[in-house]
């Protein structure tokens, strides 16, 4: 019980430190960024990988620019259909695309379209 209380106190103190440093720093650590955005750390990391939230891993440590997080919140990157439409024509000059799709359907063992064209 005493151990648990000590851990709770330590966490509270750490959170309070995080809250203070969030106010003062432009560059945030993972716990600080989570406090700043009021979300769990694992949710924040998921947003980095799945929703292109700006953050960088330097060695074993994550760093987040506070102003970049604000920009991301204001103007989230396109997702779903918007992200697909952003791709439209972006690979027009890609010399590898035809071969990629041809190889994919060769591996599937069938032509690209039902009429074989």
């Amino acid at each position, binding site marked *: 019980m005493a151990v648990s209380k000590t851990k709770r106190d330590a966490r509270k103190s750490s959170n309070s430190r995080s809250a203070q440093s969030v106010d003062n720093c432009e560059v945030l650590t993972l716990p600080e960024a989570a406090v700043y955005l009021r979300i769990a750390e694992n949710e924040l990391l998921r947003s980095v990988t799945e929703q292109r939230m700006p953050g960088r891993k330097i060695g074993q440590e994550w760093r987040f620019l506070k102003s970049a997080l604000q920009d991301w919140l204001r103007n989230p990157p396109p997702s779903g*259909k918007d992200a697909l439409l952003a791709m439209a024509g*972006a*690979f027009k000059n890609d010399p590898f*695309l035809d*071969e*990629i799709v041809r190889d994919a359907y060769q591996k599937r063992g069938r032509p690209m379209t*039902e009429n074989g064209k």
Partner: protein
Amino acid sequence: MNLLDTDTLTLLMSGHARVTERVRQADRVAITLVTRIEILQGRFASILKAADGRQLLRAQQWLQQNEQYMRGLEIVPFDVAAAAEFDKLRQNKKLKKIGRADLLIAKHRAGPRGNNRHAQLAAFSASAQATSGGLD
């Protein structure tokens, strides 16, 4: 939900006007994990097959660009129902000639959240065929 198969996605990527318009008009559009795998496998192969340093760098650049664009896409994952459907399809002897990738995509037709996705996929494929002056 509308699913784009790999050929239709690549048409969109190359700027095919009709496919782009169909995507624009659709409510919700996604790709399957199979398409993501096929595109990235192709990108890796382009790097490994590069004939010289210049081509190597170009292939790498297109891989990076592709990865960046794909991050925002909705990718339909496999769930338990889809995995069970995949097992069922694999046991069907009549489907022996159908490739593994197509079976993995076809499993979206069944399952509790199927919503006739495969039919939607077929609709987009039909749209893709219009490139060569065929359907639609």
